């Protein structure tokens, strides 16, 4: 796959075709969320755990009467919790009118990438990850996995179907 320099790419190809992605990191892996699906980035302060909730749900955030479901992207990707006790970052998303906070290790910058440069998922990618990925972008020094937000938040549907 041809490496892409996002900055040079943005300058030489023009902005109209580019898509913006909010980048996040989980267990050292760079992942991208289409900016059109992201409405906020925030620090998680207090979270209430939910007994018997699906494992992907880390808890509920009750924000002035508005309930936001905190979903662990680590668990959604089949990874264990980081055990980190420092501040937890979340990306605010919505799906079918429900508010979600997607817990990630870190939130990075916004990258502009050309959709035509997106590659299919690598053949060796974990099956669980393939279902959550729209494809990948090979950046200069790392691989960016483009997350399918609908799929990431469809864990309950998956469970019902199983």
């Amino acid at each position: 796959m041809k490496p892409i320099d996002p900055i040079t790419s943005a300058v030489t190809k023009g902005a109209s075709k580019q898509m913006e992605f909010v980048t996040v990191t989980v267990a050292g892996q760079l992942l991208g969320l289409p900016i059109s699906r992201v409405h906020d980035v925030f620090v998680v302060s207090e979270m209430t755990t939910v007994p018997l909730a699906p494992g992907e749900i880390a808890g509920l955030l009750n924000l002035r009467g508005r309930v936001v479901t905190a979903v662990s992207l680590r668990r959604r990707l089949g990874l264990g919790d980081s055990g980190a006790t420092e501040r937890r970052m979340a990306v605010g998303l919505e799906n079918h009118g429900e508010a979600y906070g997607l817990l990630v290790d870190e939130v990075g910058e916004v990258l502009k990438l050309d959709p035509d440069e997106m590659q299919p998922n690598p053949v060796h990618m974990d099956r669980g990850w393939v279902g959550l990925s729209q494809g990948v972008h090979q950046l200069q020094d790392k691989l960016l996995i483009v997350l399918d937000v609908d799929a990431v938040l469809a864990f309950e549907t998956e469970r019902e179907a199983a």
Partner: protein
Amino acid sequence: MSLDLSTPVLVVDDYQTMVRILRNLLKQIGFNDVDDASDGQAALEKLRARKYGLVISDWNMAPMTGYELLQQVRADAELNSLPFIMVTAEAKTENVVAAKKAGVNNYIVKPFNADTLRTKISAVFNG
């Protein structure tokens, strides 16, 4: 005041990712003239150089905070009627009260979504 989507909007935040997200949300709402500044001082310079119709500013920034920017804007005869919305992670009553006293038009507590942003902006322009 009525809401005009062609009005220039200035987004002020020292966190570039949040600036890009806000710019995108404003674009989704229909605003097509959105500019940004990375702190209160830079915002003040832009506000004095061009006529904006709305400021959406983060509270926590350095060297000049959003609260200090608000105070400066309200103390400036040329800018004191400029609609100003504050975005903050702090829901503390004393902060809300301080911002209200300083003349903020509306206050958004994180996390928020496009609908909240749209509603808060509409409330500023439509009362």
